[in-house]
């Protein structure tokens, strides 16, 4: 099918072999273009900038820093910096989130959503404490070891690890969260549904519904 007139004209003018050569040349251009920037705007980051922003921690834990901590070490830090909102034992205060309990409750008439009952990966807990806690206007001064210790404390209070278990970049990724397999699709889809071009969920449709290939 012809999409543009210029393309059609080109095609009709060119002989078959010339067309092939041109196609190869165009393809080469395309590759070269993909490998070098078009506008050459911006600059490489400094080491400090890379360090500052390479702070997101995914399920594989590749970005986790050196440091370690146990629930025992986490308890006094939690009492000082977290309990004001989350309660002495992670039970939550007022509208501020409960962190502990509810494991096994998600399919009951009264599900309890906590870090322990809901998270799929322990790395998500480390990541959120590290980047977002404590909340403004409190000072953000937790060291990596503090964050490991606080994560260990929350995991321990949820009965997921033992009080003396040491959390570090190797042990944290091995923690099996109770709700690890409570999500679908797993892994989450990184492409739209091939059949109709939608990203979940699907909606009602009538007889004139047109599946659209992306």
């Amino acid at each position, binding site marked *: 099918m012809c999409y543009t007139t210029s393309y059609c004209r080109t095609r009709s003018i060119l002989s078959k072999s010339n067309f092939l050569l041109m196609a190869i040349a165009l393809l080469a251009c395309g590759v070269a273009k*993909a*490998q*070098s*920037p*078009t*506008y050459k*705007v*911006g600059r*490489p*980051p400094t080491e400090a*900038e*890379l360090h500052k*922003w*390479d702070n*997101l921690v*995914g*399920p*594989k834990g590749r970005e986790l820093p050196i440091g370690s901590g146990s629930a025992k070490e986490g308890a006094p830090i939690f009492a000082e910096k977290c309990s*004001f*909102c989350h309660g002495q034992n992670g039970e939550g205060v*007022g*509208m*501020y989130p409960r962190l502990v309990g509810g494991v096994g409750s*998600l*399919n009951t*008439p*009264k*599900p309890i959503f906590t870090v322990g009952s*809901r*998270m799929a990966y322990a*790395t*998500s807990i480390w*990541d959120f404490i590290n*980047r*977002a806690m404590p*909340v*403004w*206007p*409190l*000072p953000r001064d937790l060291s990596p070891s503090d964050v490991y210790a606080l994560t260990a404390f929350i995991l321990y209070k949820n009965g997921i690890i033992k009080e003396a278990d040491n959390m570090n970049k190797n042990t944290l990724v091995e923690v099996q969260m109770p709700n690890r397999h*409570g*999500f*679908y699709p797993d892994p*989450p*889809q*990184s*492409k*739209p549904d091939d059949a109709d*071009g*939608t*990203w*979940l*969920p*699907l*909606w*009602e449709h*009538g007889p004139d*519904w*047109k599946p*659209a290939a992306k």
Partner: protein
Amino acid sequence: MSSKKTDRRSFLKKSAALAGLAAGAIPFINGNALASVTPGLVKGEAEAKVGTAPEEPNIDDMLYGGRSSYEKTVRINSINSPAGLRNLTPLQDSIGVITPSSYHYLVQGDMHVPNINPDEHTLIVHGMVDRPTVFTMEEIKRLPSVSEVHFLECTGNSGLYHYKSLLENVKKGRKDVSIIQGMHGRTSCSEWTGVPLSLLLKEAGVQKGASWVIAEAGDNIHHAKSIPLMKAMDDIIVAYGQNGEALRREQGYPLRLVVPGFQGVCNVKFLASLKVVDEAYDMQREISAYTNTKPNGMSSWFESQVGPKSLITFPSDAHKLPGPGVYEISGIAWNGRGKIAKVEVSVDNGMSWTDAKLQLPIYSKAWTRFRLPWKWDGTEAVIMSRCTNEFGEIQSTMEGLAKLWGDDFKPAIPAADIEKWWETAPITEFLNNPIQPWKVKADGSVQDVLYNKLLPNPFYPV
């Protein structure tokens, strides 16, 4: 100024100052104190003055235009518990398809809206790229730009979870809450201007094997969201402009993501970092929130595309018709997939439907205004709208949604079951796009018959 007002003002100032203190006790731990430092909760004085020019303005007063003092429409503060800042768009007074930036809904995950100096702000693109790159704002604005009209909608908009909060607010005596604004006001539509995200990613050179981009904010809570690379290469905008001017501070000034058609939480504000990776990163706001848990305990995650949705904005429960006669039924329709193709309106409780006139041009993944003249005879009538997108996908009733999502839905919930139902029904929270019927009563007042049908509002009888 009365002494009462002075007292409240000085209290507000004190509370704000306390909240700014970095050390010691948290002043807003108590919900009431928090409400007092949260703008918008106190009605009256503030509302009357918001955005207006002085009574006798001189030319300097009008350097940045204010509205007539006869116009009093404002966003309202969230009906939800105030952990974080929320402001809801006054849809009942919406005109056309553009939401003025001052009316754009606001959801901020914490209590702090940063004020970032654009001269110091940078965006870093890193991770699985050939050339990790830092862009200044000046550099971003030098690149080829696009302007597109797109809606944003909070994931929880129209969710029954908010209805529960709304009833609690009304019970406490709050007077400024309507269903149209309180339940549906987490959507707005703007013209966004910026650089295509695909352009920045191509400049940095995305490596083979990459499949997700994690966008991270430079605000205090470092909101982060995993976005599929395919979507990033499709139509996402790294925006610095909104409705012909710079982004408003609370909309992510100086730079934000606009992810067309995807739920609001993806549209990361105060954008500072884009990391290209090979898997979703399971951030807090994609696991412990923004997932849909079903009755069997399994949760769907990374659901993203907003479904076909429409809403009659006039007449709605914020209005009262003065008497029988001709009115223009007007509303908005939107959807996360392509364009709105059709909006039908019923004025007889869904017995018959008429195609409404759609405002042109129809933008993709944007609000579409629909209009239909209506002669009201002064008798009780139930009016509603439903829309269809260009792919033939249709807006459902609440019952239809429940069926679609395998929900345990009951049209009228026994009082004894209500607490259990709030906790367990997935449709209480996310991605709700039900048909919203309004009942125009004989006296001209208008009432909600969607949420009210599920759980009668004792303060608002049908």
